[in-house]
């Protein structure tokens, strides 16, 4: 195992390894108190570890929680390396660029009874379509979303903003129109790391090479 040279003020890896459970448990301890996803960089900086080390520990924890037996190279007793063969009730996921603990899907019904807050009503078809246009065309003005959907979207856009799924993203320098983009909460709710992970739009959209130019030409 290579040891990094921690800064003097940081707890550093050596100190952490002296605590029960070591650096891995320290990462776990922090994951218990965060209320939004933490990036590997934030965790590394807070714990005085390198990003590589933190990445490795997170991957190890993720495997342990999912019930795979871990054989870490520096552990003597693989059977004692952590969680055994059965999956835990929770999982560690990397969403919207950060790591966070979630209850496992299998227990959705049971957990749902305890966690009423934060459960949001399903979006209407109109809201979903508007959200889709904004997600794939961001940053985009309301007028352009309206033009694509063929209906006025003002109230739907307001609802999506209230739900925290979209936000203002400044104004278009040319038209002065307010532009909208999706939020990191949207990524969290979708369970993806970035908008690049959204399903491809083009397979559903054949022969539309000219459409963007059309809208641009119209100044929408």
């Amino acid at each position, binding site marked *: 195992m290579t040891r990094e040279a921690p800064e003097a003020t940081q707890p550093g890896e050596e100190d952490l390894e002296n605590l029960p459970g070591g650096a891995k448990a320290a990462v776990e301890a922090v994951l218990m108190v965060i*209320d939004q996803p933490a990036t590997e960089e934030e965790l590394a900086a807070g714990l005085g570890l390198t990003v590589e080390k933190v990445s490795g520990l997170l991957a190890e924890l993720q495997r342990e929680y999912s019930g795979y037996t871990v054989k870490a190279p520096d552990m003597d007793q693989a059977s004692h390396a952590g969680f055994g063969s059965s999956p835990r009730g929770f999982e560690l996921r990397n969403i919207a660029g950060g790591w966070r603990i979630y209850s496992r899907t299998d227990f*959705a019904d049971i957990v749902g009874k305890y966690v009423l807050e934060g459960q949001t009503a399903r979006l209407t078809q109109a809201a979903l379509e508007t959200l889709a246009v904004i997600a794939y065309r961001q940053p985009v003005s309301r007028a352009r979303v309206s033009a694509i959907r063929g209906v006025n979207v003002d109230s739907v856009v307001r609802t999506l903003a209230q739900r925290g799924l979209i936000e203002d993203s400044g104004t278009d320098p040319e038209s002065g129109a307010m532009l909208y983009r999706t939020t990191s909460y949207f990524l969290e709710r979708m369970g993806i790391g970035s908008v690049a992970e959204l399903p491809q739009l083009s397979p559903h959209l054949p022969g539309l090479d000219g459409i963007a130019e059309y809208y641009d030409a119209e100044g929408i």
Partner: protein
Amino acid sequence: MAESKPGFEVRLANFTGPFDLLLGLIAKHQLDITEVALATVTDEFIKYIRNLQKLGGEWALDEASEFLVIAATLLDIKAARLLPAGEVEDDEDMALLEARDLLFARLLQYKAFKHVAGLLGESLHQEAMRFPRQVALEEHFAAMLPELVWKHTPEQFAALAETALRPKAPKPTEVGLAHLHGGNVSVKEQAEIIGLRLQRESPLTFRAMIADAESTLVVVARFLALLELFRDKAVSFDQLSPLADLAVHWTAGGRQWSADNLSEEFEEQL
């Protein structure tokens, strides 16, 4: 439309089946849009929606607005399809053909977004089955937080509340809407323009009528307006040979005519 409900079915002389399938066939050019009786489709749809309402279906509104979007686009395409389909002879015909393709592209794009919206809905639903750990800070950590710096007087705080509670002023989007749309082109407005022009001078060629059109949309709107005027028996056409100039005659005479009397069909702005 979700699989859980039957969805809207169309019964026409040349097609019977789900509305989605009809759109698919038109999209794949396997069915000519000009052969679809849109009026019949609309009548059937209204019947279908009434039934849904009777059953207390809450999706009636969603489905109705979706139908309106598609039907309006189909209507646009159908109207554009009535253009001469022969060889492209000049830039003007080219522009009209492009307008038709763009309208069609708009329908495809709408359907594509509708499809991915379904995928997004599915992801959101799946993710809603996982709950993030999002607990309040343990008390001993909360106690470590730095003492809050508070320097607001009740008056300043009230001013803050005034700002927060005041209804938000309309965003700049609203102000610039007209020019953002490249100028909303209204079929009714264009009908007014060509109506007045024809009352002054008749006949006029279509070419002359669109000579001053500043965009493709205006050309399309004037064409649609002519169809409307024709239906209202305000104009008649003659054309000496296929693809020759189309001459438009004003037939409403001196009787009271106003674009306001045009049917509501083209209320929607292009």
